[in-house]
């Protein structure tokens, strides 16, 4: 009898314990930040190098340096891009996340709206050396206008036109194209030599958005009105999207096969010398890892409609980059701030941006001669003069999804040989707009 009773009691206790522990999960770290565990930090880095392993090799020595200086141990996790946003959303929802993390700078306003990230007000900026350390273009992509930034810039990137010198020489092209018309014309010469003209990631939602955003700027259009309402079907927006898709549908510059690319196959094609041109951000490190040395390709500004790159309709890149954010509920607020100061300090900025072939968003680090190569000159110039930030609205993430998907479907039409007309583009964009949140 006693054994039965013991068994019964055991069963009850066990089930209660299970219930208790399972329920005790996500409640511990709600609320504001504290300094309860001043000796450790968790850091989620985005995947900047050719692989996760490369990132660990780049970052770990720097984190060790930080530990030596401050005694704070930083636990590093490099999160692949395919998972990063989901992981951040999960961390936001559960309150169980890292202390410091990298975010794609275009997500800043969306994540800012969740209220999970530490706002960088005057006082917080003062702790890391002041707002003035950062260049304006980079600060323009850190959150909605008129609000304290949700993150600080860490690495800056811009789109550029990468071109294969050998293919250009074979086709008798002396200068990289400066306008889209020139690009299409050069394309004919390149095709005559049996090479593909321009690589694109037609099924990659984010890439599509980055490109049509720039085209929209060049057509004098914006995807959002001044008060943040979606406006996808303006004439400018429609012509912009059509012009980009027409690079495949009409001009045949982008090969049809690229319509299904989403895993950076276009970069591989370029590295292998199959494609003559590529529009990409900071591709140098990636190309090198795929065996294409720097003397094989040239870097030029992304083409415009006419004239030279500048502001307004002469914009030829988005402000691409990575921001560094602190989760508001961190249990090591001072340490997290110190870490941000360390990562945005001149020395680390130089080391890390060189390793990732990006441009430092910190003005004083940009002067380093290491960032004066021809490649970086183009990127620096673009960022300073002719790059625009993607819409800094709370619905940015949805915007990327619906517009990127619309362009993907249009590319699929073009690849299948179906006509891409002003009407079909407008219909797709109208559908995309209807999918945007209405509140």
């Amino acid at each position, binding site marked *: 009898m006693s054994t039965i009773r013991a068994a019964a009691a055991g069963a009850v206790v066990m*089930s209660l314990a299970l219930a208790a522990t399972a329920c005790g999960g996500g409640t511990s770290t709600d609320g504001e930040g504290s300094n309860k565990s001043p000796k450790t930090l968790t850091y989620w880095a985005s995947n900047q190098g050719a692989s996760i392993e490369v990132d660990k090799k780049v970052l770990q020595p720097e984190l060790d340096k930080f530990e030596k200086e401050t005694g704070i141990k930083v636990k590093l996790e490099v999160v692949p891009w395919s998972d990063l946003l989901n992981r951040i959303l999960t961390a936001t929802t559960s309150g169980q996340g890292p202390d410091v993390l990298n975010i794609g700078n275009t997500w800043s306003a969306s994540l800012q709206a*969740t209220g999970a990230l530490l706002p960088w007000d005057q006082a917080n900026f003062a702790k890391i050396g002041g707002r003035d350390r950062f260049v304006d273009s980079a600060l323009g992509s850190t959150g909605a206008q008129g609000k304290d930034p949700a993150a600080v810039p860490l690495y800056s990137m811009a789109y550029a036109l990468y071109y294969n010198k050998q293919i250009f020489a074979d086709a008798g092209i002396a200068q990289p194209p400066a306008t889209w018309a020139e690009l299409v014309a050069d394309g004919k010469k390149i095709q005559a030599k049996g090479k593909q003209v321009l690589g694109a990631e037609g099924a990659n939602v984010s890439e599509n958005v980055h490109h049509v955003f720039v085209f929209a700027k060049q057509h004098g259009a914006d995807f959002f009105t001044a008060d943040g309402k979606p406006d996808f079907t303006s004439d400018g927006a429609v012509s912009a999207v059509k012009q980009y898709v027409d690079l495949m549908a009409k001009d045949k510059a982008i090969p049809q096969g690229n*319509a299904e690319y989403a895993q950076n196959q276009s970069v591989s094609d370029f590295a292998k010398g199959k494609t003559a041109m590529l529009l990409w951000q900071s591709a140098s490190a990636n190309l090198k890892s795929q065996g294409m040395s720097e003397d094989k390709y040239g870097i030029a500004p992304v083409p415009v409609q006419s004239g030279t790159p500048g502001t307004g309709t002469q914009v030829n890149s988005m402000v691409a980059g990575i921001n560094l954010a602190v989760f508001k509920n961190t249990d090591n607020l001072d340490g997290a701030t110190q870490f941000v100061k360390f990562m945005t300090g001149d020395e680390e900025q130089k080391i890390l941006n060189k390793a990732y072939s990006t441009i430092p968003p910190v003005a004083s680090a940009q002067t380093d001669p290491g960032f004066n190569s021809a490649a970086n000159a183009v990127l620096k110039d673009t960022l300073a003069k002719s790059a625009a930030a993607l819409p800094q609205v709370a619905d940015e*993430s949805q915007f990327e999804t619906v517009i990127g*998907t619309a362009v993907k479907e249009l590319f*699929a039409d073009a690849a299948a040989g179906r006509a891409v007309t002003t009407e079909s583009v407008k219909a797709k964009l109208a559908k995309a707009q209807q999918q945007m949140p209405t509140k």
Partner: protein
Amino acid sequence: MTTTAEVEKPRTDAGSEPAPRPRPGRIRRIGLPYLLLLPALVLELLVHLVPMVIGIVMSFKELTQFYIRDWGTAPWSGLDNYKVSVDFDAPVGEALLHSFLVTIGFTLLSVGLCWLIGTAAAIFMQDTFRGRGLLRALFLVPYALPVYAAVITWVFMFQHDNGLVNHVLHDQLHLTDKPSFWLIGDNSFYALLTVSVWKGWPFAFLIVMAGLQNIPGELYEAAALDGAGRWQQIRRITLPSLGAVNQVLLLVLFLWTFNDFNTPFVLFGRAAPEAADLISVHIYQASFVTWNFGTGSAMSVLLLLFLLAVTGVYLAVTSRGRRASHAR
């Protein structure tokens, strides 16, 4: 709690002979099995029911990025999320309906083919011959492979420029005028169906094979004596005997295929082509990618209701059918 309750059993038949005295601890003994079940029950609650209830609660909330940090503050939206989901004239509802119909078509085809191939293979593997064990093991490979690894291999094979499928169909057999796209556009439906059947039929094969072992050999011998051919044996003996197995098999295959997320997600990424826009990925996109967890939950609840209805009707119809055949 049952363990501590001491209930005296009332004497009903006081007259004739003394009723057996309720032995102490009897109720405890009756209660014990339930007690031992308790941990499992609590876990079941935690793992299945609690998330389901939370999901249902979420579907009545306006849970966008502005509120996910603290769900409590998300405003109640009543039936708004459901209205948006089933308003088939508006884009969200229309897309959901389209996705739903695609999923139904896909599921019926996939389950049908899986069952057909699986059953055929199982029947062929029934006779002993050299290499049978090897073949049986080989047939199970697609089922045993990790989903991601298997599907990503298919992605490579379906590539337009240098995929194996186009190489065979176009370069070798010249069946098409030009290489086809399999991962975008309308063909994506067939690509998805191919992978799904390839991945699913070994399970049907395994289950039917197990079912076949229970059919007594004498039945076939008797039928052969009566002059029944192979085909008649299959129709008159094998298939009817497999009835109970098939009932469960088809239901399970239906539910798995209908809810399959991994295959379309690995094949097409987060934005599936319209022709292959399965409902699980569609809901994922409606909630995770556009950060509207309320609408996503509402769609999930609708899906749950639909699957419950299908399961209920299916079980009612099939078991009535079987009872009727038993009565005969």
